[in-house]
């Protein structure tokens, strides 16, 4: 049925997100009387779900897949819709839906939550556009489209000093890294003479005397990717921004925005700078990503161990997970037989991570909504008052740690196994050691919630409301985290097929 649609219909998931964002603005502008928090949340959630449904339909129908005629190019090759783009759009749309549903309760007493929803939807549009970008120019524009609403979202609580401070830090680091990234693009353009990814790849093969220029450009682009994925060396905004931002925004940034960084990295580096051609031009970006992966996961994990604030711990754990996902780029080799397996595993990990990490941050959002405090001690005994939400949080924690009964086990296992199969035992070993360390700080949350007694009998009196939207989002994410274990087969197959198309 998809075949009978016009070519541009392949962009429908992106357009659905954009249209929803515009619709929200429209409602806000022409009929302010009806811009209640609820109607806004429902509209944006429906928009995200429509986009999700379209992506799933396209994936099942095989849009952009080799079997149905290959990737769909639009707008003079600037846009390319393939399985990978759809896969990541599914992640963005799922996280967006979870976040807006949860935000409905989080901003229940905010005076004008309407802006929040439209900012989230525009940012999501940017992410979806990033996933289909086939030109460095589109990549940059889409990247800015993701970033600009994000700065505003982090500082959304205007009267909260932490929120504003986080926003400023995020903006400054973001502005610098954007500048570096766009400068990198210009250098690559100078060396190769094109912005379209496949033409850049041809340019790299005959780069000769300009290899140095191209190399510097690529290094600068790595910097831009590191910023967006919260990896070393541009990670230090992440703990500040995630801690200061309203928790639903933290969930959004650490899951969707991170995945957006990875879709750029996966596409640009495999399509524009193929490993073989880059190596013969003397540019070894695989090694660069390998070092970044090791440093990022180790730093993220060790920093998470010493935190006393749950949200900040999750922020550092999110840095650590960026390191795991970087293995998807760091463990590939020229003509390696397992390239698609390891990159597919990284993509599948990002999907699973999208649910478990969003869920964990949304639990923090719920704790903030209750007002029970932010440290591990403040979570003590929560399970007595809110058992179901705490079970969900335990699922997220164990899954993030990679314990077997949950989806996080398979996604990490595939990732490490893919790295070993492709000859990168050291990457897998560092990843496995970090995974074990992570069990310590994740299990601290579980221990606090279930085993510890509250510091005072009245400490939990704040837990007096049952925010339906937040509860629903948290439980849905937990169910997805569990069900992705038996249902991991189709996910990994789709991801591997998507990755295989890149090599």
């Amino acid at each position, binding site marked *: 049925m998809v075949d009978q649609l016009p070519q541009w219909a392949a962009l429908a998931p992106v357009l659905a997100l954009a249209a929803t964002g515009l619709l929200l603005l429209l409602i806000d502008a022409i009929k302010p009387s009806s811009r209640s928090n609820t109607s806004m949340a429902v509209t944006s959630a429906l928009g995200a779900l429509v986009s999700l449904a379209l992506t799933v339909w396209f994936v099942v129908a095989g849009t952009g897949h080799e079997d149905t005629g290959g990737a769909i190019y639009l707008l003079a090759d600037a846009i390319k819709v393939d399985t990978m783009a759809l896969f990541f759009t599914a992640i963005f749309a799922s996280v967006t839906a979870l976040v807006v549903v949860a935000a409905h309760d989080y901003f229940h007493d905010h005076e004008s939550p309407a802006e929040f929803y439209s900012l989230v939807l525009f940012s999501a549009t940017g992410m979806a556009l990033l996933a289909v970008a086939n030109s460095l120019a589109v990549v940059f524009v889409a990247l800015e489209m993701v970033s600009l609403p994000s700065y505003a979202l982090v500082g959304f609580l205007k009267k909260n000093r932490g929120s504003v401070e986080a926003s400023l830090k995020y903006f400054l680091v973001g502005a610098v890294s954007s500048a570096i990234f766009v400068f990198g693009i210009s250098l690559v353009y100078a060396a190769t003479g094109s912005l379209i990814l496949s033409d850049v790849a041809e340019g790299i093969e005959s780069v000769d005397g300009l290899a140095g220029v191209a190399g510097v450009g690529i290094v600068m682009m790595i910097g831009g990717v590191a910023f967006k994925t919260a990896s070393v060396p541009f990670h230090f905004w992440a703990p500040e921004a995630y801690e200061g931002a309203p928790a639903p925004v933290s969930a959004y940034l650490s899951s969707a925005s991170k995945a957006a960084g990875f879709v750029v990295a996966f596409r640009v580096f495999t399509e524009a700078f193929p490993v073989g051609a880059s190596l013969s031009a003397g540019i070894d970006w695989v090694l660069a990503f390998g070092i970044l992966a090791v440093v990022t996961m180790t730093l993220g994990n060790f920093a998470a161990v010493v935190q006393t604030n749950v949200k900040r711990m999750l922020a550092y754990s999110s840095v650590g997970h960026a390191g795991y996902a970087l293995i998807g780029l760091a463990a590939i080799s020229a003509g390696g037989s397992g390239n698609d397996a390891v990159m597919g595993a990284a993509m599948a990990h990002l999907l699973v991570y999208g649910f478990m990490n969003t869920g964990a941050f949304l639990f923090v959002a719920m704790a903030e909504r209750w007002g029970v405090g932010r440290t591990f001690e403040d979570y003590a005994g929560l399970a007595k008052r809110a058992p179901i939400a705490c079970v969900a949080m335990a699922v997220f924690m164990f899954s993030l740690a990679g314990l077997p*009964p949950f989806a996080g086990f398979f996604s990490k296992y595939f990732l490490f196994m893919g790295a070993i199969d492709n000859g990168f035992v050291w990457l897998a070993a560092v990843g496995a050691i970090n995974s074990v360390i992570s069990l310590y700080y994740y299990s601290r949350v579980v221990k606090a919630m279930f085993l510890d007694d509250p510091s005072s009998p009245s400490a939990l009196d704040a837990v007096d409301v049952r925010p339906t939207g937040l509860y629903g989002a948290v439980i849905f994410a937990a169910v997805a985290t569990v069900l992705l274990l038996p249902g*991991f087969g189709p996910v*990994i197959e789709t991801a591997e097929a998507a990755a295989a198309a890149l090599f």
Partner: protein
Amino acid sequence: MIIEALIGFTFVAALLVLLAPNEWAGRLAFALSLVPFVGSLYLWSGFEAGGNALTGGTIAFESQIEWLEIGGRSVSWFVGLDGISLPLVVLTTFLVPLAIVSAWTPIDTRQSQFYGLMLFMEANLLGVFMALDFFLWFIFWEAVLVPMYFLIGVWGGPRRKYAAIKFFVYTNAASLVMFIGFMALVFGLGDSVSSFGLPEITQALAAGELGMWFGIPPETLAMAAFLAMFFGFAVKVPVVPVHTWLPDAHVEAPTPVSVMLAGVLLKMGTYALLRFNFTMLPDQASMLAIPIAVIAVLSVIYGAMLALAQKDLKRIVAYSSVSSMGYVILGLVVFTEYGVGGATFQMVAHGLISGLMFMAVGVVYNATHTRMIDDMAGMADRMPIAVGILVAGAFAYMGLPLMAGFAGEFFIFVGAFGADAALPYAPVFTALAMFGIVIVAGYLLSAMQKTLFGPFRLETDYEVGPAPFHDIAPLGVLLAAIIVLGVAPDLFFEMIRDAALPVVEGVSVDG
């Protein structure tokens, strides 16, 4: 489909109980837990398997559904039973209802969560014993830890948090080592296996398909994998010197959880040792026969000595488990029909006996609120039936003939004594291990004499009376099962021997 129905039902039952109100969660859990028991009896009645599931025997109730593929090897939902796993499945489904009834008295907070977790654990335990695919097995194996962690950590004694975390960290770290060891084997087998099915891997190993991996020769690889897996499972069993998590976990755990821990969870370790180390890598096992036998004898003697030194009734039973597990390891390492078969039989027998002992000590504790030997005396006056069964259980532990413990230990000694071929100095090891029984008799008799007999003495401000019927009934049922199995060991031993023989034949005794 019957296995899927059994495991699936138990998961659903766990969910139902979790959502039930606290007042009747215990009764609902008991009623629901009878269904898996009946199901396992049905499995037993329709059981038709020959040989060992891993070495190519026919697998009863086999069921295989493709799940996903990892690096060219398929992972599937692959379950089935043979003569080694069926007795343990029956043991599990038999102990859970009894443990649930024994929880009615001591568990008085958050009952629905407690019983829900018990059933959740049962479902995963069944999975451990029935899974024949490595990944499936590993998921169940690890999933057992989660409910156990909460059962100890939430409902345990004063130092419950410490005990729960120690248990979790010890067994999890051990699992990781074991996992890496097994993965090394799979990588070493390379393209000669197309799945993670345990039978396929076992048979490929037996056929000598293990190759070089990253420059490591196959012999070294097999030995490293054996050691890693042995370490991983030894912690679970546990054997000396990695046993230290066990007494803490037992003492802090509430009675019904101790019953499950000693009765079934420890058997996961010995079951996995038999399945993985001794069935898959018999040559490495016989190369290391002497060190393993030393560990076994050390566990028997040292565990018993530690029990001798305790002043807490529950600690005595806990340490005696370490001692009993030593016999199982000894039975496995000698590679004879009666040794391996007896070890498997002893797993079931010890499951019943230690379950009975923990339950009986728990009944006494319910009345006295102390477990210290010095605090009480003459309990037989006040609770004659419970004490009578406790004494009977202790005699079963000591290996009184016509009780299950005697059969298990006797098989092991028969199998071990003449096993010079696989284990040099086998008679010496066997004789040393037998000496453990003397110590067992020593500490059990002395503890009982001090606490149960003589004039009644206990400082309480309430009257100590006989235990309620629902405390006594599970004790009686367990005792009956112990006697039945002692009188007619062939109920299980025949099928166990059938499944153990291929393991024994797999080892080149003269090599």
